[in-house]
């Protein structure tokens, strides 16, 4: 497998449980950043990074605007902003229109990252009830990146990974119990 410079995980309904199961299995010495974009209600801020932080020894933090993206850190997209990736590998936040009724939109992060990281990008789309992320996976593929989805059969809500498997070329379909190893091997 090509060297990975960034892993972005997108998810919606049913994805939090997956993250809570996968994070404890991750090596503490990952050579790339993990960026997590999940839909959630606006207002319940800072709870998610805290929750995830309890499951891993890696640094987990909510993204600040203009923050440089560093290896070995898990970044969580803030609610009610889109998270974009800049050419210089830093984050920009954007409060533009919702996409697929979602802000943050997984598509916005996947698409801007696709161009920056190209064949060094891995995108993983988890359980969810809308099709956000699907266009982003198509972009990631077009720029040479690696695409992965949660096996729809293991997803609490299978619609999102299923839509991805119909519309985008998917390299890996992963069961929850295989995800941590998959991620560790990207290092």
């Amino acid at each position, binding site marked *: 497998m090509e060297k990975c410079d960034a892993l972005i995980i997108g998810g919606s309904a049913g994805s939090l449980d997956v993250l809570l199961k996968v994070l404890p299995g991750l090596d503490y010495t990952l050579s790339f950043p993990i960026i997590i974009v999940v839909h959630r209600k606006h207002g319940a801020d800072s709870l998610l990074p805290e929750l995830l932080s309890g499951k891993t020894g890696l640094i987990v933090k909510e993204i*600040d*605007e*203009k923050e440089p993206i560093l290896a070995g850190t898990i970044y969580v997209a*803030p609610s009610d*902003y889109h998270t*974009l*990736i*800049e*050419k210089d590998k830093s984050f*920009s*936040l*954007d*409060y*533009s*229109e919702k*996409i697929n009724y979602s802000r943050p939109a997984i*598509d*916005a992060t996947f*698409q*801007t990252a696709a*161009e920056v990281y190209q064949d060094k990008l891995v995108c993983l789309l988890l359980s969810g009830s809308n099709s956000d992320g699907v*266009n982003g996976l*198509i*972009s990631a593929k*077009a*720029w040479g990146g690696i695409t992965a989805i949660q096996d729809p059969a293991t997803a609490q809500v299978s619609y999102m990974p299923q839509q991805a498997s119909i519309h985008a070329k998917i390299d890996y379909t992963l069961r929850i119990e295989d995800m941590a190893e998959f991620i560790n091997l990207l290092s």
Partner: protein
Amino acid sequence: MSQELCVITDEQIEVLLADLLENYGYDFTGYSKASIKRRILRLYSLDKQVSFAEFRYKINNDNFYFKRFVEQITVNVTEMFRDPGFFKTLRDVVLPNLGTYPFIRIWLAGCSTGEEAYSISIILKELNLLHKSLIYATDLNPVVLEKAAQSMFAMSQMKQYSENYILSGGTKDFSSYYTANYSLAKFSDELKSKIIFSTHNLVSDHSFNEFQLILCRNVLIYFDRDLQHKVLGLFDESLEGLGYLALGSKETLDFSPLSKNYKRIPAEKIWRKIS
């Protein structure tokens, strides 16, 4: 929106931004690249443009399309009483403090379609301060200011705005501030009477007054660090001693050398100028 491979290159974006500066005096070169590129690609696909050359020609030669371009590449999403906790602090701490002044001058920079200006006006009225206040609501984009001056917002938003208003400490019947007119809610003239809507470009225009409160929320996120420094300097220049500066929930003064002259109100993105 599908953008599998980008139809406009980074170099072409630079060309467009240089055109805008040269032909119209609008300087977007200090904007965050990822965001502005997304906005331009979005418009390109929304308007079903077929070639970059044609797109560029239209922007440079069709004044009507140029206006559309500026309106569409800047983000004009806003709501009334967004982040109710912030407006509660304005109501409970900041504005009562400023209430001791004989006259209150407020600058709302990047006001877009005016939702926040009317929100502030409502709080000032409830605190019995509106009569001695003036809100300068500015934006670089004249099209959104025209809309703001109409004081009409979509009726469909009122349920959400009313909830925000109550969460921000409002106790009146929110619907008493507007009259319903089919799909639109028209806010009372009294609320508008103390708002001056005017164009001002944070990138190229200078300080135009001294204020006790400057609000600029979710504008700096679109600027690169250099431009952020420059604009924070402009705000500092325009803020009286002991005045307040309010930023968006993900924006901060922390990285700026100015921060040593400011004291933050805990838990809010509001700073008070202490020297």
